[in-house]
């Protein structure tokens, strides 16, 4: 290996291994300054490699130019826009034909949370149920950030979005204070499809992400592999672009986001301890979209964090302890 | 053109019988078109299907409103359905029934009747009241429009296999053998 990063720093291990591998996106993509999605997709495709067909439904991924514009492409592997609604189905067709022809091709989807949890959920669920052989990655920036930061079903309770705004209220009800429902837990739904592999990940924990990518690529050769990556959005969540990793890290340290993986044979396993989390306010105060929260709303969110943590822990215990 | 209307109940196989009869007619080098009526054909509900036979290609793909022949595979159906609607004068009725001709109430349009105690025979052959193939035998015996041989060949090419095929062959033969044919003389000529 020609790479000379310090081997005693564990973060350098990834660089030493894959630093020479080609970044399979164009050098210039139109992601926002400090875009976590751009970071994620560049690492992911580098790891998955060129024997890949990439599907990116409408959202930030193609929005920053990965499928290109008027004759130019942003990707060095075959790439296409599915519809927002049919990513898993269309990619399944591609993969099946290569399998029929006896060619080993990785079918990779990088989809937003809106296109996966809302309008694209039917095709996602159908493909998972059929065990279509693909790696389906969801970039969860908790809303429709590409089209102007509208709410999705993955938007968390209390968050400001352009369709769950903060307002003075009207005669019919309370003042509007952000989203009034909790987020849909898409990765847990995928666990209930008994996918070959399900994992949650964060770009703040790159070694964990890379390890999970390896397992997901392997699982995608025999079944449906699903990786759900929490992806802070500097523009939509309202924090300075340089704070991206810090926000991602705080999400995990407070248990707002938990990192785990699941296979049908091994069950669910945390890849990072969820004991002794920081208070959720450490996460909430890091960004503008939660600035308006009342003490009651913060209490609700903290309660949900604890509830979610216990809920997933029970999955984990049933798999290993029980 | 010879037009037949099948009457039965959902689950009794009258649509299947119509198809087998059409196949038998094709076996004999004739042209045949069969069309089921369309509704929610749930088990037990009255159903109809239509069959046209001809020496020449058949172009009409429509229902049949004035049949030459009625095949009623269910003995109780006449209580709820006017199976005789539109029957051509001098037309033929093939009826599954244990009753003698004298006990049947028939309109003036009926000119020929084939009667078969199909339920009794079916219970002996299948241990269930499946009368459709039986009534095809009755049809062949009563009308001569199709031969028993052609029906047998059509049955062989159908989806029936092994024991089911043997049972249906028996049913077909007994339907043919145990049908009584009656010509009804009308006092007033048409």
């Amino acid at each position: 290996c020609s790479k000379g990063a310090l081997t005693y720093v564990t973060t350098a291990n990834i660089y030493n291994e894959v630093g020479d591998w080609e970044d399979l996106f164009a050098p210039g993509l139109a992601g926002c300054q400090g875009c976590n999605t751009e970071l994620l997709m560049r690492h992911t495709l580098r790891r998955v490699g060129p024997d890949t067909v990439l599907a990116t439904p409408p959202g930030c991924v193609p929005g920053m130019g990965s499928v290109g514009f008027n004759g130019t492409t942003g990707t060095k592997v075959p790439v296409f826009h599915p519809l927002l609604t049919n990513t898993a189905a269309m990619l399944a067709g591609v993969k099946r034909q290569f399998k029929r022809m006896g060619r080993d091709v990785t079918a990779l989807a990088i989809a937003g949370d809106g296109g996966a949890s809302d309008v694209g959920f039917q095709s996602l669920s159908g493909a998972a149920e059929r065990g279509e052989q693909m790696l389906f990655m969801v970039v969860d920036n908790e809303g429709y950030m590409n089209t102007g930061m509208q709410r999705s079903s993955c938007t968390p309770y209390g968050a400001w979005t352009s369709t769950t705004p903060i307002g003075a209220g009207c005669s019919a009800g309370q003042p509007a204070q952000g989203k009034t429902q909790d987020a849909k837990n898409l990765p847990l739904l995928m666990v209930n499809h008994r996918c070959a592999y399900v994992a949650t990940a964060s770009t703040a924990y790159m070694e964990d992400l890379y390890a999970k990518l390896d397992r997901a690529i392997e699982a995608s050769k025999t079944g449906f592999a699903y990786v759900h990556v929490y992806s802070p959005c500097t523009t939509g969540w309202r924090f300075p672009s340089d704070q991206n990793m810090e926000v991602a890290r705080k999400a995990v340290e407070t248990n707002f986001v938990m990192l785990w993986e699941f296979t049908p044979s091994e069950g669910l396993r945390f890849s990072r301890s969820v004991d002794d989390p920081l208070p959720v306010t450490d996460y909430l105060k890091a960004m503008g979209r939660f600035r308006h929260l009342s003490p009651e709303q913060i209490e609700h969110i903290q309660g949900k964090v604890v509830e979610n943590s216990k809920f997933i822990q029970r999955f984990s215990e049933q798999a290993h302890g029980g | 053109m010879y037009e037949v209307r099948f009457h039965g109940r959902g689950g009794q196989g009258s649509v299947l019988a119509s198809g087998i009869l059409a196949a038998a007619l094709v076996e004999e080098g004739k042209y045949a078109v069969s069309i089921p009526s369309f509704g929610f054909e749930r088990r037990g509900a009255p159903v109809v299907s239509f069959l046209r036979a001809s020496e020449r290609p058949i172009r009409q793909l429509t229902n049949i409103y004035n049949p030459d022949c009625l095949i009623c595979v269910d003995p109780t159906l006449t209580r709820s359905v006017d199976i005789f609607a539109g029957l051509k004068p001098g037309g033929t009725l093939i009826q599954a029934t244990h009753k003698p001709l004298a006990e049947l109430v028939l309109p003036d349009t009926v000119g020929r009747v084939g009667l078969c105690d199909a339920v009794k025979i079916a219970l002996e052959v299948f241990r269930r009241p499946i009368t459709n193939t039986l009534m095809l035998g009755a049809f062949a015996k009563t009308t001569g429009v199709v031969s028993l041989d052609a029906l047998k060949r059509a049955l062989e090419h159908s989806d029936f296999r092994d024991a089911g095929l043997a049972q249906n062959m028996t049913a077909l033969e007994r339907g043919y053998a145990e049908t009584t044919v009656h010509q009804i003389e009308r006092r007033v000529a048409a």
Partner: protein
Amino acid sequence: MSRHQSYPLFNLEQANVPDDLCPVATDISPMLPGDWRSQRPVVDRDKCVKCAVCWLYCPVQCVEEHAAWFDFNLNTCKGCGICATECPQRAITMIGEAQ
């Protein structure tokens, strides 16, 4: 995956495929976002220990390795500042482009 380099992009002309059937793109985007920057990262070469954290977290992957330090390709660096914030050695400073 054994292969880590891209295959050459498809060439419509060479393959004699009309360019008006299915919409396709076969040229890599020439866009370079370096001119988006209002701030640029500057590396203190003495402090840099080549831990690769900046490379790990750079969204545009514009970090380049030099003999004794890591530096940035300013054609694509958008100036987000993540590298400066994340550098464990505090070896990267963001300075205004106007200066």
